């Protein structure tokens, strides 16, 4: 029996070692192209450059602003990112002595309500150091709030599970990377590197939808919530972004990226009002910053998918930002 168990053990160790090596050393080869976009931001944060204006936000801002049309600005938006990642983006920028004087910040309402991408993107895409993860989990624990998704209500009992899961992903446990490995089998390297180069050349701008128009409903419209309710943890971090910027004399423009007509019509008036009220409250707390407090609407033909602008929309929105803030 010893010999049999030894054989099983050898195959298990071999399999495990190969998987750990792949997951640790070849992330560009099995992750989706979103990884390339997060990697771009990770790499940019580690380098110092001449730009003194940056954007911090999610995929909607990423697709809405072409830095080449504006000049002297670099996009550091993260697809699926929330203000939690936004805060660490800013603090890493400051740590690296970047000469930042202005940041343009924007998050879609749904990224202020739930934190879906903490495990699936931020942790898997190596955005955080363990100390930062510890800080976030500790803060989430003290706030006793809904943490990363509405279906998982945060509690003492769950804290240990969340912490363990975070540590296992951080340590590259292959169990958490199976779906990415399955859908790629290490064949995504070439296209991911191309995507990385493309986004680097475009200073962080990336298109999402490529349709000439989209009349579909975005996530806020699909969820059909009656009221906008900010997540406590996200609220904590968005305020930390403003406070940190204020401390370092960095001007913050919190802007709204456009929604298509179909979505705006589908979202309830109460939701729009409660969202605006939240932004008004932010504006009142941080009077030195500018905060756009209403939802901006563009016609459907400016959208490449229900949530993101196509290039025609990007042109229009980039020119708007150039006039207002740059």
């Amino acid at each position, binding site marked *: 029996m010893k010999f049999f168990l030894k054989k099983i053990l050898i195959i*298990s160790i071999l399999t495990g070692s190969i998987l750990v090596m792949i997951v640790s050393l070849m992330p560009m080869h099995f992750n989706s192209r979103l990884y390339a976009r997060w990697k771009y931001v990770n790499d940019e944060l580690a380098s110092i450059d001449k730009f003194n204006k940056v954007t911090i936000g999610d995929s909607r801002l990423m697709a809405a602003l072409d830095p080449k049309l504006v000049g002297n600005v670099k996009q550091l938006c993260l697809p699926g990112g929330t203000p939690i990642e936004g805060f660490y983006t800013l603090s890493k920028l400051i740590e690296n002595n970047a000469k930042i004087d202005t940041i343009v910040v924007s998050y879609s309402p749904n990224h202020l309500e739930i934190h879906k991408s903490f495990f699936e993107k931020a942790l898997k895409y190596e955005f955080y150091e363990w100390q930062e993860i510890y800080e976030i989990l500790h803060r989430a624990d003290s706030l006793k709030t809904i943490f990363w998704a509405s279906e998982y209500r945060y509690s003492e009992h769950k804290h240990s599970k969340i912490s363990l899961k975070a540590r296992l992903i951080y340590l590259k446990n292959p169990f958490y990377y199976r*779906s990415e490995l399955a859908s790629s089998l290490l064949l995504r390297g070439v296209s991911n590197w191309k995507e990385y180069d493309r986004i680097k050349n475009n200073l962080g701008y990336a298109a999402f939808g490529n349709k000439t128009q989209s009349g579909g409903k975005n996530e806020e419209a699909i969820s059909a919530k009656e009221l906008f309710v900010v997540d406590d943890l996200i609220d904590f971090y968005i305020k930390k972004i403003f406070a940190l910027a204020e401390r370092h004399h960095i001007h913050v423009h919190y802007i709204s990226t456009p929604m298509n007509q179909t979505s705006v019509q589908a979202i309830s008036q109460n939701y729009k009002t409660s969202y605006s009220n939240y932004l008004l409250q932010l504006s009142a707390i941080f009077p030195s910053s500018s905060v756009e407090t209403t939802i901006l609407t563009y016609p459907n033909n400016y959208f490449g998918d229900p949530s993101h602008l196509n290039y025609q929309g990007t042109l229009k929105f980039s020119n708007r930002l150039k006039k207002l803030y740059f």
Partner: protein
Amino acid sequence: MLFNSLDFAIFFVVFFIIYWLILKNSKKNQNLFILFSSYIFYGWWDWRFLSLIALSTIIDFTLGQLLSVSRSHKKFILSLSIVSNLGILVLFKYFNFFIDSLKALNPTMFDEGFSTLNVILPVGISFYTFQTLSYSIDIYNKKIDPEQNFIAFAAFVSFFPQLVAGPIERASHLLPQFMVKRVFSYSKSVEGIRQMLWGFFKKVVIADNCAHFVNIIFENYNDYSGAVLITGAILFAFQIYGDFSGYSDIAIGLSKILGFDLMKNFAFPYFSRDIAEFWRRWHISLSTWFRDYLYIPLGGSRVSILLQIRNTFIIFIVSGFWHGANWTFIVWGLIHACMYLPLLLFKSNRKNVEFDKSLNLFSTLINSVKMLSTFCLVTIAWIFFRSANIAEAWSYLDRVSTFNENYFVFDPDLITLRFVFTISFIFLGIYSEWLSRELNYGLEWVKAKSNYSQYVIYTFLAILIFVYSSSESEFIYFQF
């Protein structure tokens, strides 16, 4: 509990340790432990249905004892066994189907308030019912003596490796194995692990990947061209084979590790050169069950040609109906009966029994054509097996057979990296099974390779299985 789940992995490790390290010297305790573990295994899905297995076990054990002592009421006792076993099966599996079919035939037959039963189909009910039924029939036919040890009998009925999806074992083959001392065998266990590895590859890597595309194509068949629908049917042929034969390989491999030998259930059916050969290679435990307990009692092939035709149709229709309470399965059986008929009439149904070992190019070519044509026929029949109802199956076939200018248009959304992988895995599977075509399972050829090559192949398969097992999907045959 699914074989392809973390729950089962933990369950089996614990089972293995207790079974081989703690209870190795006591056959009685091992049997008791198998029984206990099998009930946990089954109860994991729904503990309420454990009572059905327990009931079936008690009835057949008691009737088995009575059959051996009774001189004048044997037929009555056997009927009691058949009625009680089939009664449970009919109640849970076919009752609603009969009522719905009768209602469709004559809507006024039932009162307005009469409704069908609101019951869930217990997993694997058709498998263990047939297994216990064969026990009673074999005692009646004096092929075996009734088992005196209740624990051993109960362990035989509920033996977890094959409880929910077979192979459907005969008491004469499996039951005696519970009565002998089991000693851990290195070579048998390695054989078992190797067969399990192949079973997991077929289920997790081939079948589950095929299922992704099959579900899309069959659920939206009106949106796709004929070429896509043909692809969907072919992928389903590999899905159902990978799924079911994969389960059998895992069950047989697991049993080997526990010191048991289960019967072979698949013998590379897609290498068959005619339908008769296909049925000698596909779901062998069920087809031989029907042969022994239905076809031969009906007279088999020793009756007039007309009766032989009748018997053939009965066997195939019942076999189809065994799979599920739906007309699609009956039509599937009927199609196979029709395809088998010419072979019966021309007395060529036993023509292709052995693999052609000659390396003659002409015979190889002829055999390839025969294999391909048999596969095409089987695949057409699978369309009925997979479709939700007969109308859908006809409509699917109609679109396949109607040529138009868009017939070969392939939806670019389907040609993903995953599609390419799936096709590659199917070819890998076919190649490996071809290398093992005269052996017992698809990976047996590896045995002859060097230790180094074996480790490379096992590790490669283990990585693929690990990667593709992120979503635990049920085995198709659980529902039967």
